[in-house]
């Protein structure tokens, strides 16, 4: 197990390096700099600016400098937000995104697993078909289409919930639901599939033969083995929620990290964009690592 963990840990490093090098190269090769303004800056000042930000050094030196700073948790100053470092911006945005994403993930798991289990218990019944049809709809409708439609229905027409902002818990309801719905659908489909398989196995038949109530069979016996595929889906689910949060935060005006990312991308805020990509990249890679460990622990037959 330890050597597995170590090998799995090492395999994350090249991914990270490629990610860093790629985004770094893209940002430096791209046309248009952060100091390109309509008014031409005198060349002397331009030079000073470039020197101050080390933009005059060869690329590999800039990359080395950047890596060195990253090791110390320093993402550099933002090119766009005056007087803020990227680390500060991430520090300000991430807790908001984490709250939103965490709640969405929780909702996705709870709702998805219960829906999937219900469908599996009533396999091929009308309930099953209706529920799985709805799950397919949930997968098909992207959350940036769903979110405005939900706002239109619940905030504009019915006026039950606020359309955006951040403050009271009610303002979180719509963003969390929009973010969670596609994931609920995936989790429900996965749970249904694996639950059906587990319910057919011998130990469940034995439990039934002994006259255990259905609820106890499900909760006490079937759930754990049925959840193994869900654990392996946690990685993609996290990536999905993080990506989704970019648009959802934009739509609902939530001041999270995703919103900074979009603003930074539109403003060519090099350090901020890079910082967010690296931050989320590390997050996803670390998370996948943990998920693989958990998976291996749940099911020692797994070879990776």
């Amino acid at each position, binding site marked *: 197990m330890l050597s597995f963990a170590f090998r799995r840990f090492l395999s994350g490093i090249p991914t990270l390096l490629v990610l860093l090098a790629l985004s770094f190269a893209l940002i430096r*090769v791209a046309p248009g700099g952060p100091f390109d303004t309509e008014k031409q800056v005198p060349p002397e000042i331009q030079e000073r600016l470039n020197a101050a930000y080390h933009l005059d050094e060869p690329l590999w030196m800039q990359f080395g400098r950047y890596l060195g700073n990253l090791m110390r948790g320093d993402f550099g100053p933002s090119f766009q937000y005056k007087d803020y470092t990227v680390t500060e911006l991430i520090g300000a945005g991430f807790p908001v995104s984490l709250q939103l994403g965490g709640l969405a993930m929780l909702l996705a798991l709870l709702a998805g697993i219960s829906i999937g289990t219900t469908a599996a218990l009533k396999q091929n019944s009308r309930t099953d078909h209706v529920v799985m049809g709805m799950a397919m709809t949930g997968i098909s409708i992207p959350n940036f289409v769903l979110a405005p439609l939900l706002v239109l229905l619940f905030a*504009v027409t019915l006026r039950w919930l606020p359309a955006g902002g951040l403050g009271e818990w009610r303002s979180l309801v719509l963003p969390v639901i929009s973010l969670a719905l596609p994931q609920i659908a995936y989790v429900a489909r996965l749970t*249904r599939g694996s639950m059906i398989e587990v319910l057919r196995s011998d130990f469940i038949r034995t439990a039934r033969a002994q006259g255990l109530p259905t609820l106890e069979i499900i909760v006490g016996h079937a759930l754990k083995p049925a959840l193994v595929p869900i654990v392996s889906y946690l990685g993609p689910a996290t990536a999905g929620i993080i990506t989704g949060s970019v648009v959802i935060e934009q739509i609902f005006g939530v001041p999270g990290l995703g919103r900074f990312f979009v603003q930074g991308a539109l403003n060519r805020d090099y350090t901020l964009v890079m910082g967010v990509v690296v931050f989320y990249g590390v997050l996803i890679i670390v998370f996948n690592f943990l998920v693989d460990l958990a998976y291996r622990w749940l099911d020692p037959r797994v070879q990776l």
Partner: protein
Amino acid sequence: MSTLVTGQTGRSLWDDARDTLKKNRAAMTAIALMGFIVLLVLAAPLLSPYSIDSTDWERISIPPSFATSHWFGTDDVGRDLFIRTLYGGRISLLVGLAATAVSLLIGIAWGATAGYAGGKVDQVMMRIVDVLYAMPFMFVVILLMVFFGRNIFLIFVAVGAINWLDMARIVRGQTLSLKKKEFIEAARAGGVSPANIVRRHIVPNLLGVVAVYVTLTIPQVILVESFLSFLGLGVQEPMTSWGALVNDGAQVMETAPWALVFPAVFLALTLFCFNFIGDGLRDALDPRDRRDS
């Protein structure tokens, strides 16, 4: 030679698949609906008296009306939303097909080479795929779009170049298992060259899996394009796509909900259809790999 079984016409994989697919009502409905959407999108200029960027200053943000032939209403500068929705569909579908074709080419070449070569070559090639696979893909596409301008061609390449990873993995896996089959061994023993083995025996047997995967990739790609356009990083004015229209519509939904609803419905229906067709094809062509549902 004379012992070959004759007198009974064989049933190919494709015959079986067609029959299975025909029995799948959801998939058949999806195919019909998708065909209808494609027809609508292709025939767009014949169906409306308006053009994509002509503005009707007399009728700004009017709801759907038959009297003026603005069947889906107009947007906030008086452009007809029916024709814009259909033209947006052209872009969305085109991006879906083109980017899928890019990913198909790279994926098949990469996967088949890795699988057939085996050994060290295979290991190195698949390690590269693994490394790229763990990248936050949407962020990379956004980076590409931000830094290299917002043109449609780049969307094809960016999305296709990143989406080929799944295809490569699937093709490699299939190639590995096919390589060990008796008929490949027979071909090799019969002196067929490796290139011909790949072309005549391996690739045709991959097509089933690839077809399934293509139908599932197209909606993903359409989704990515819409996502980018929604953020304002995709297709630029005066052209449009479903994602861009949904974005425009979302800004004015309180006063003109029709501007949001129509493109949203078209986008969702298309994704829905492709997912159902893909599921149906998977059941039909690849009965062993029947996963959930």
